[in-house]
């Protein structure tokens, strides 16, 4: 094992360097059009679907924000109450009375998000269908900055950056950085037709495209990823408008965050399994998106295995060393133990870390993120080390849950 480790590290470094070069190249080539969006050739009619499960705290504001987007051709806002146990239904009914375009569907039983969306989709009248999570607030003008992409008849879905609304706590700030990096890289993937998710907080779909994929997969825990892959498989293009945004809340506790990410991971694995045959077919789904997900999973798990191997050997070594040192009455630690002669892997690792750090800073500068000016810049290295290192643990837990058949939302 120790003999192959340097080669494993070099492979990781190569892949990281490749992704950095890949993103940087795309950005350099497209920086002038990065925030641009096409003006709509027509005012498409649009139906909003707002699935809600125990969202009484934010539902009203979500609907107000949809109405305040300023888009002139909103046909309807369909709130689908998914058997909430709080005041969600009551608030939805009040909104229905207050605004003539608001309609309420009340699920007789809990159908999950995908099931709720399918109910809404079945009655949606618009040419376009927009999904908005009941805790998310689309920015003013967001729809106008997104629907121009539908001028191209091949486009089936349009997404925009999701920004973190609650960012007082340290943990929330880390997620704010993460969301910005995700938004930036998703826009870059747009240029190679490889957007792999149109996230729930705000996504607009061509209704015809959603019908073609038979709506949302109720068996999948990440219906947004699955729908995007399904659209890709059917040849529909996905676009990203970086000119606008939707704000959403993120978990403020580690456990809630872990559960959310585990769900994302389980959903991703379900998608890989469902669409595995695309690997042999032409198109970006099989050529890039699925291999990218598989590679990500594999590298994460391999990294975790190496981590545990190194940790175990270190613990055993230290235990034995301590035991023998006590027997011999010699010091357990001597000054020489802290003397490190750096290897080429150390140098390359540092260079890669600096490049990754620079990439994150550049991302935040380009997206005009306030962390650069107003918040602690040391959050970034913390995000790059401690926060990102948690990913493989979540993946491992997700696989365990999947094997055990625990495909639950929460």
């Amino acid at each position: 094992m120790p003999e192959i480790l340097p080669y494993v590290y070099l492979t990781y470094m190569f892949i990281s360097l490749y992704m950095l070069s890949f993103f940087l190249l795309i950005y350099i080539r497209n920086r002038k059009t990065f925030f641009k969006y096409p003006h709509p050739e027509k005012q498409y009619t649009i139906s909003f679907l707002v699935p809600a499960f125990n969202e009484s705290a934010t539902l009203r504001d979500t609907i107000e924000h949809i109405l305040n987007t300023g888009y002139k051709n909103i046909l309807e806002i369909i709130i689908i109450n998914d058997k909430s146990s709080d005041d969600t239904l009551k608030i939805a009914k009040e909104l229905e009375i207050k605004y003539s375009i608001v309609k309420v569907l009340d699920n007789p039983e809990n159908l999950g998000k995908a099931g709720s969306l399918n109910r809404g989709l079945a009655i949606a009248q618009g040419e376009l269908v927009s999904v908005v999570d009941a805790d998310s607030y689309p920015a003013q003008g967001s729809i106008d900055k997104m629907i121009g992409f539908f001028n191209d008849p091949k486009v089936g879905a349009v997404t925009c950056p999701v920004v973190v609304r609650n960012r007082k706590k340290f943990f929330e700030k880390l997620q704010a950085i993460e969301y910005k990096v995700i938004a930036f890289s998703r826009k870059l993937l747009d240029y190679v037709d490889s957007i792999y998710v149109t996230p729930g907080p705000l996504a607009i779909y061509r209704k015809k495209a959603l019908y073609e994929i038979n709506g949302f997969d109720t068996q999948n825990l990440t219906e947004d990823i699955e729908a995007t892959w399904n659209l890709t498989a059917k040849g529909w293009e996905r676009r990203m408008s970086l000119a606008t945004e939707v704000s959403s809340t993120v978990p403020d506790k580690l456990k809630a965050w872990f559960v959310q990410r585990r769900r994302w991971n389980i959903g991703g694995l379900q998608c890989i399994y469902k669409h595995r045959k695309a690997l042999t077919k032409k198109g970006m789904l099989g050529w890039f998106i699925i291999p990218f997900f598989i590679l990500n999973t594999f590298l994460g798990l391999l990294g975790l295995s190496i981590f545990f191997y190194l940790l175990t050997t270190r613990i055993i070594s230290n235990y034995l060393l301590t035991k023998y040192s006590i027997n011999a009455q010699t010091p357990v630690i001597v000054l020489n133990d802290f003397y490190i002669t750096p290897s080429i892997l150390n140098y390359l690792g540092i260079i890669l870390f600096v490049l990754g750090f620079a990439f994150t800073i550049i991302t935040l500068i380009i997206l005009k993120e306030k962390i650069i000016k107003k918040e602690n810049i040391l959050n970034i290295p913390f995000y790059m080390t401690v926060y990102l290192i948690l990913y493989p643990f979540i993946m491992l837990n997700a696989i365990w849950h999947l094997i055990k058949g625990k495909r639950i939302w929460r």
Partner: protein
Amino acid sequence: MFHSQKHVFWQALLITILIFSIGIVLGIVLENWRTSKISTLAENSQLDFLDIKLQSEIYSNEEFNCEVAVNENFKFAEQIYEEAKMLDRYESASRLTEDLKLQHKKYDILRGMLLINSIKIKKQCNSDYYDIIYFYKYNSEDLDLKAKQKVFSRILEQVKETKGSDVLLIPIAADNDISSINLLLDKYNIKQEQLPAILINNKIKITEIQTVDDVLNYLN
């Protein structure tokens, strides 16, 4: 109309291969520089040793100057001990090349020569300093053995610190398949399974962990 830029996949790959290759080449250059540094030191040490040997030969034909011979031997032992420490550090940081392993063998042979020379000088001069030979395994990944060897090294370092010039410490890797070292192991009846082993004055053999005081007791 949107135009996909899939050629970026290939361009990024070419750039990555280029940058990565430069990194690997720089890594090899760095490791080769370290090897060449150690190699130069080893060659100088070889010359120094030949010089000591020649001095001994000259003295043996006339009046043998024990003080000079012993001092030179100690000085040389110190020198290669420090150089070997540097070699160990470089070896632990070596990832792309294996040339340092050869240098390690050179130092083991040098230490073997030093030992033989020391035995000869002690006999001729009737000196009362202690030879401590430390035979260890160089190629083992066994965690228990590595921990044990680390503690053996620390015990000997402390012994050397306490006894100073009363002790000539010679650590030798015993599993590098060097015929002369194998001969020494046979001579002192030390089996590979018994490693690590400490040999004091060619008589006392220690193969189990002992306290520093216990080892010092053998020297008193």
